[in-house]
């Protein structure tokens, strides 16, 4: 039997539960009478292979393409992809859809497309998601364009796929296809993801580490017996346009779903699948305060003390988010929030267009602690304008709050500041204004840069600050020792690579 469409999620993403993308697209296509299979390859990849010695190197390469593999690691990886491609070809879909969450899925996608097309070039391949419309210096064009021109991909859907993927299938659209942004009404009407093809038993055993799903990541032994994490979307885009973030490129405008409908989706998944832990895919869950309040109100009333959720969050002041919001969040099941603090310096935060002030951060931290909600702060080391004094403010705010948050605060050093393609930091206006010069190393432009306005902020300095924070955190919290050590290791490897390439 031939199926119309098969959709897979491409590694690499960290995963603690079923990936929403393929299941959501399946629901959208099936609604239009298009037979669809959906598989979560990224979780399968993590689940099946994370105990193997090759896994760490290959997934490090997925995330940092400058990393090299041994012949043995490369051969192992090629065999894995070949095997997956064979399974796809045996199912004989007319169309293979590959969903990429980020750039970290590009390497896998290139290879999967290669092996599938080599085995059966009649299968049309459509890629979509957030990780493909990205400029690559090496090719002088966007990555998706390269794949289309090289004929290993037929269609690249840029933007939201819930409706446009249906168009692509129905109307046989090829090439790079720019979908229009959904409005609030359309977004509210998207169906509930259909996970019926997923092997749910896979998610019972958690073996992976994760930086966004902090409670599980910090100590892998904590993960045992924890519920499966289901993803849910209540908004797309962001109310901010931080210079380090490419969300505005993917979703230029902030839109939100009806809070009651989002709550209804959560309730449905709870009743039908026993889902009781949810992770919001939103760039920030409190971008729209009205729908956020509606969501919490519905959950608190209709599903009291039944579920927990986690999300990304922006620190706001008491005028925008009075205390009653936090109390309602707590009753609705808000378990943990990822707060983009980024820096302890107001000057840095304002320059990066974060918007939040130190006062907002302090207020939010106090409220979250009061209502027993866990929080993770993202910290970036070595922002363009960051001085020694700015960095000291970051260390100070971390050192101030860690002992005052009842163990609910986790500080996560994200990385050194990278000038990533697709973010406002890579725009000419930003580069010119900051006299920022990029040293393109082996095709990668975001790593080794220098601003003539702040010339002491070298890659070495940024790496030094990053490690200073990691070292401090290692000293005060052993719960996520493994993760911090991995981060230090990766940072050290990258520093060596920069030194070698620059030489």
């Amino acid at each position, binding site marked *: 039997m031939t199926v119309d469409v098969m959709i897979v999620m491409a590694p690499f993403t960290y995963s603690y539960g079923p990936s929403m993308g393929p299941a959501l697209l399946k629901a959208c296509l099936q609604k239009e009478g298009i037979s669809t299979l959906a598989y979560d390859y990224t979780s399968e990849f993590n689940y099946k292979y994370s105990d193997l010695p090759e896994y760490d190197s290959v997934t490090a390469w997925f995330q940092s393409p400058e990393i*090299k593999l041994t012949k043995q690691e490369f051969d192992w990886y090629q065999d894995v992809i070949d095997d997956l491609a064979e399974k796809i070809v045996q199912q004989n879909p007319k169309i293979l859809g590959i969903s990429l969450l980020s750039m970290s899925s590009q390497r896998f996608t*290139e290879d999967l497309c290669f092996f599938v097309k080599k085995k059966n070039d009649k299968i049309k391949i459509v890629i979509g998601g957030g990780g493909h419309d990205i400029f690559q210096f090496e090719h002088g064009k966007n990555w998706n364009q390269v794949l289309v021109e090289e*004929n*290993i991909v037929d269609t690249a859907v840029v933007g939201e796929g819930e409706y446009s993927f249906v168009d692509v299938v129905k109307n046989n659209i090829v090439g790079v296809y720019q979908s229009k942004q959904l409005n609030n009404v359309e977004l509210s009407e998207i169906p509930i993801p259909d996970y019926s093809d997923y092997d749910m038993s896979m998610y019972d055993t958690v073996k992976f580490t994760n930086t966004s799903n902090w409670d599980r990541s910090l100590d892998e032994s904590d993960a045992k017996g924890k519920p499966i994490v289901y993803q849910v979307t209540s908004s797309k885009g962001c109310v901010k346009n931080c210079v380090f973030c490419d969300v505005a490129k993917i979703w230029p405008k902030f839109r939100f779903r009806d809070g009651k409908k989002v709550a209804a989706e959560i309730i449905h998944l709870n009743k039908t699948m026993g889902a009781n832990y949810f992770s919001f895919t939103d760039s920030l869950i409190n971008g729209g305060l009205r729908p956020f309040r509606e969501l919490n109100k519905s959950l608190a009333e209709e599903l009291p003390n039944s579920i927990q959720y986690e999300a990304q969050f922006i620190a706001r002041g008491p005028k925008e988010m009075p205390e009653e919001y936090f109390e309602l969040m707590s009753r609705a099941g808000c378990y943990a929030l990822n707060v983009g603090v980024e820096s302890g310096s107001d000057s840095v935060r304002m320059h990066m267009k974060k918007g939040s002030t130190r006062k907002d951060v302090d207020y939010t931290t106090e409220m979250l602690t009061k209502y027993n909600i866990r929080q993770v702060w993202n910290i970036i080391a070595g922002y363009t304008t960051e001085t020694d004094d700015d960095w000291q403010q970051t260390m100070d705010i971390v050192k101030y709050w860690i002992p005052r948050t009842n163990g609910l605060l986790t500080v996560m050093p994200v990385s050194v500041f990278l000038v990533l393609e697709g973010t406002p930091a890579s725009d000419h206006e930003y580069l010119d204004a900051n006299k920022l010069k990029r040293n393109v190393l082996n095709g990668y432009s975001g790593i080794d840069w220098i601003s003539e306005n702040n010339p002491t902020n070298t890659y070495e300095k940024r790496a030094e600050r990053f490690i200073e924070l990691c070292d401090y955190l290692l000293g005060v919290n052993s719960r996520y020792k493994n993760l911090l050590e991995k981060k230090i290791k990766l940072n050290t490897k990258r520093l060596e690579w920069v030194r070698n390439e620059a030489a």
Partner: protein
Amino acid sequence: MKQLELMLKLHSLPDKKPEFLIYINNKEIKNFTFISEYADDDLNLCVVKQELNNIGNHNFKIQFLNKLDTDLLVDKSRDIFVDLAIEIYSVKIDDVDITHEARSTGIYQNINSLNEETFGYMHTNGTFTFNFITPIFLYKRNINLIK
């Protein structure tokens, strides 16, 4: 379709030219065992063009057939001044040059089944084999990826 353009430089003796076979994807494409097959120009270049599938594994092989021990002439200081040989001069897929990759990763095996590392210079009877994939950007990525 992609086009492979393989250019060989032929090092001839005054009265003898290299004789060789070219295989692409394991099929014999050219048989240069007859003098008349040569494109005669100043550079003694032999050019072969072949269409390839957009996606897949490929190879080309050059089998050098007629070298004798006497086909290497040296002067009094033992410097070579005439040598019957074939040199991988250039390899392109469409407009992407992969000469360096072909010379450095191609395997040149002599008739005693020993591999010789001569960076694409075939100085003795044997077979030079180069394996690659298309799209070529993936081939280049893989070459740079392995330690």
